């Protein structure tokens, strides 16, 4: 770092290195950028994978995913090799002749896959979409259900 600092006035005094020096200070600035900016970038990227909750009860697994502002037809739910996939594409809700003032919402394709800890009965899966939350109920396959075994006394 010290060596770089020492070089700096010499570099910028030469006209050909002027651009390079600007580039370097730009890179320095990038590394000095507050962490909040990086946090915002990661938040932006996470938009492609909706937040999910997975619950288990005796009969079912229940998966809840936050998918605000979608149409029922735009959501695709599928089961493959014991993993539940929720995917779709959120289309931008544009305002006519509107100038964007603030843009924090995510639009575009998303996908989320959840590996289920036990086998489920694929034919009986149901999905419900309400208030921007998708709830998928996956009934456990018979062999995955807990069984009570009577103890015999001879």
């Amino acid at each position: 770092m010290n060596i770089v600092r020492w070089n700096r006035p010499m570099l910028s005094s030469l006209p050909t290195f002027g651009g390079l020096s600007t580039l370097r200070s730009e890179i320095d600035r990038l590394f000095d950028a507050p962490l909040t900016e990086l946090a915002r970038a990661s938040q932006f990227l996470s938009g492609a994978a909706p937040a999910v909750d997975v619950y288990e009860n005796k009969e079912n697994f229940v998966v809840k995913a936050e998918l605000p502002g979608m149409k029922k037809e735009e959501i695709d739910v599928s089961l493959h090799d014991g993993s539940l996939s929720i995917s779709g594409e959120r289309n931008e809700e544009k305002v006519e002749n509107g100038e964007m003032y603030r843009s924090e919402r995510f639009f575009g394709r998303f996908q989320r896959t959840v590996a289920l800890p036990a086998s489920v009965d694929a034919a009986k899966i149901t999905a419900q979409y309400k208030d921007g939350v998708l709830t998928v109920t996956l009934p456990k396959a018979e062999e995955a259900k807990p069984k009570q075994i009577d103890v015999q006394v001879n």
Partner: protein
Amino acid sequence: MQTTLDKQTNGTAARPQEYIAPNVNIFETQEGYVLQAEMPGVGKDGLEITLEGTEITITGRRAPESVVGEPLFRERHTADYRRVFELDPAIDTSKVSAKINQGVLTVTLPKSERVKPRKITVD
């Protein structure tokens, strides 16, 4: 044109953990502003929009969800939503309207008649 609708706070300092700030998109048109806020889990009954002085506060309370079992994995927030915005003085606060559809709140904030661009016909 001055900066008009702007984020002010992400909840109050006194109760920092109680709310999360919804993600918003804001558009400006000739007629006014349109604010869209993502609040999954909030229905019409959980919405509260208050206009006070030069501020608009949107609060969204999640509809109670029935207990469905033991959680294996949790990513979703349980906190309610709240965010405060400063209003452009040009907004006619008596004409603000709101609707919610599948967890997305849309607030329409029309500008008052006197600030709208107007054409004057020359006789």
